[in-house]
């Protein structure tokens, strides 16, 4: 009968909550105690460099397109040698939800997550990070990849000199 079910449904939770009161708490007392982060923990983002020490980010706007909260903004520009890079690159960490979608979108392995998460701040403007602060001096989790060696448009090496490329063709050649 439904009335018994209702009464049971009202009484039973009391038992559950009562039991809970005597269970050990699960809270980790954060500043004193630190948990072990998972190896793929998604914390603060960094911009890494390629093995040659150049900025990896080519300012392709893919991460900003992937970001569900639109917290990445940038402006691409061109260097003397044709390299595309970010004139400025900004992440607003007070908006970032650390979902890591930007890192998945990144075709050059430039933007990567780290285990660093202590960014709380009283001044919201200080949680807006610019490229200078985001850029690190290492390759992060991807030690080998160098986008411009595979791009096939001759920035890191001359055209036709990268792995997997033939020398530029001579269009005026008539040989078969």
């Amino acid at each position, binding site marked *: 009968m439904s009335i018994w079910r209702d009464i049971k449904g*009202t009484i039973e*939770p*009391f038992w*559950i*909550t*009562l039991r*809970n*009161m005597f*269970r*050990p*708490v*699960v*809270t980790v007392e954060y500043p004193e105690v630190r948990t072990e982060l998972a190896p793929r923990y998604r914390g603060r983002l960094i911009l890494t460099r390629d093995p040659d020490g150049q900025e990896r980010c080519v300012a392709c706007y893919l991460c900003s397109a992937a970001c569900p909260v639109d917290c990445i903004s940038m402006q691409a520009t061109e260097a003397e040698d044709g390299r595309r890079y970010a004139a400025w690159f900004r992440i607003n960490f007070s908006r970032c939800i650390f979902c890591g979608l930007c890192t998945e979108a990144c075709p050059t392995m430039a933007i990567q997550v780290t285990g660093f998460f202590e960014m709380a701040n009283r001044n919201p403007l200080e949680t807006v990070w610019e490229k200078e602060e985001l850029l690190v001096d290492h390759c992060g989790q991807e030690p080998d990849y160098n986008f411009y060696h595979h791009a096939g448009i001759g920035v890191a090496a001359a055209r036709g000199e990268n792995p997997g490329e033939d020398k530029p063709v001579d269009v005026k050649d008539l040989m078969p």
Partner: protein
Amino acid sequence: MPEWMVILLLIVAKLGLIFMVLLTLAAYLVLAERKILGRIQLRPGPNRVGPFGLMQPLADVIKLLTKEDFIPTQADKWLFLLAPGLAAVTALLTFAVVPFGPPITLFGHEVPLVVCDLNIGVLFFLGLSSLAVYGMTLGGWASNSKYSLLGAIRGLSQLISYELSMGLALVPVVMLARSFSLTDIVMAQADVPFALVNPLAFLIFLISAVAESKRIPFDLPEAENELVGGFHTEYSGMRFGLFFVGEYINLIILGSMLTVFFLGGWMGPFLPGVVWFSIKVLFVCFFFIWVRGTLPRLRYDQLMHFGWKILLPLSLLNVILTGAFLLWRQG
């Protein structure tokens, strides 16, 4: 020292004591509630201020006192300022009639452990609890905000509805004790507490009391997630604090009333009466907190439905049954 002066001093001391105890208790009840709720949810609760978070109430008071006292421009200023006081004062006044122990002898005087043993204590209590509605209603109305107004309207109709069954649940008690004085009611329970004599009345009163306290599962006037705090949305700082304290004093009052009406007041073996009384009141308070940690909020129509279609007929029935029982016993 003339005798009237002694009596006066005693009364003043009693008043001061009750006042102090009540306010401190209310403050720590807040802490207890947060701790208990924390434990129910496998958290430690507040534990940063002082050992075990014991200084938390103090920190809260300081915080509330130093916050900006904000009055909305469109508010009815006088009523807005008056309402929280009204809420706290009515709650405090009710305690005047609560007997919290058997009379004791001090300096050769028999001192009743009640501020004022009115022979119509029950009616006084019911009257004041109705007055308490004003604090909330005026607060909600004066804020001139849709949330507050909605909260106030909800609270008003809820309290009126449940007051009815609450009053009716007390009729059997009065019939059993044959007195309106709270002290007499306690005395009548010397052998068996009324909770056992008339469990139905106890249950109805208990439920109505929770409703009266505007706490979960009956916290529709506040309903944070739909009314953003209800009647006290627009209040801040110490004025909000007054509403808050009022609510917890009210909790203690209701606990005391339950104790007095149904749990045998200060009656109990071995321990002194005051201690028994305190234990019972505190247990009822704990029970209220426990309910809050356990049950979800009702829907508004469920609340009204339950009040008018179930509780009210039941309490009327109970009055008739009790009367019949008493007649049968006499006859």
